[in-house]
């Protein structure tokens, strides 16, 4: 997935964060220059993650980090399931039925057959692609799950479904503020 926003540059942010922050980012990036950060999410447009990656990927590339962005494929049924899962993780009472779980697994398997996992670090965003961790045992690499939603009070059933996937990751990142 190539970013359509070719016009975003680090210097555009100087007036907002200060030149010292941009300079420090270059210092930090130097330590990971040439490393491949592979981002995976569920949609190229719409939603906060797509908004983040649209900007983050070209900025990382400008810093010398090989950043790529892959979008998993899924049908309407899959996204209905993940929407329910999303709401349940936020604490809404939702039942993730066995049929819904099977839909999640089938979509995950279809993507596992098609996707390449080549990043030094594979950063999987939110619950929709979390099941892709199944490939870790074959390709190795460092897998990180980035959770952008509030899972502080999840529906127990929803977390019970998702946790076995999350627990396989090398690390998980949550927002706590």
């Amino acid at each position: 997935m190539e970013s359509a926003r070719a016009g975003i540059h680090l210097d555009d942010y100087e007036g907002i964060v200060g030149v010292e922050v941009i300079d420090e980012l270059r210092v930090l990036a130097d330590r990971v220059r040439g490393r491949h950060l592979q981002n995976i999410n569920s949609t190229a447009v719409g939603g906060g993650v797509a908004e983040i990656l649209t900007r983050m990927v070209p900025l990382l590339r400008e810093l010398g980090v090989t950043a790529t962005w892959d979008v998993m494929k899924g049908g309407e049924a899959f996204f209905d399931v993940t929407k329910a899962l999303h709401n349940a993780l936020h604490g809404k009472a939702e039942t993730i039925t066995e049929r819904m779980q099977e839909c999640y697994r089938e979509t995950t398997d279809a993507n596992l057959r098609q996707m390449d996992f080549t990043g030094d670090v594979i950063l999987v965003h939110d619950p929709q692609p979390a099941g892709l961790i199944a490939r870790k045992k074959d390709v190795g690499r460092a897998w990180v799950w980035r959770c952008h939603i509030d899972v502080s009070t999840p529906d127990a059933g929803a977390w019970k479904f998702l946790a076995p996937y999350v627990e396989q990751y090398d690390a998980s990142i949550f927002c706590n503020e």
Partner: protein
Amino acid sequence: MNHGEPFRFCTERRLVQLTGQTARTLSGLLVVLREISGSSVFYHTHHQFLSHHFEKPVVYNDFTNWVSEALQENLLAEKLYAVDLLAFASIRQLRNAIISVIEVHLEQVGGSLRECPPGDEFHFCKSKSFVMPTGIVAGDVSDFFKKVRGITNVSLYFHFLEARLRLERPTNDFSHWLRGRGESELADSIDHLDPYVVTLDELREQIVELGRNRGIG
């Protein structure tokens, strides 16, 4: 830091991790506080200085906030709020001071049976710092005051707040280096700045102003 050497500005990035330890009561908080790593104590008493450097939160201390909001122990919260972070030269001393305040309070009120509401438990975190050079180097005192204007708030936080407690040195990195350069008066002036009552931007301006007043930088 060899006093003949230039000042090398460093920066850091922190990895915040959940420890898995939680507390629901004051007694529970004490049990964990006595044993938890120093990096956890430091994180919960200092992270907001870096997180909210554009504004000054009313209370920076996570323990104070939790005691007040989750346990409704407002008297204890005031006592914890009064703990002067500048008075300690080590995380160990800071930990002992917080523990002492809570223990004394519990003795005075005959213990506390209050339990926080479900979901409001105190989750102990810790932070692991990755320190690295910024490439900004000050060759002399004048150069220092020029260069300090251009460092990030993270670098300022590291040299002024974090290094002091982590290295158990009763002064900040800037003052330590300036004293080595024979600038004891400037070093003392910077040492007397209180980083806990201003934002990091304001702290930087205060440091620059001290140099400016001496005609330096």
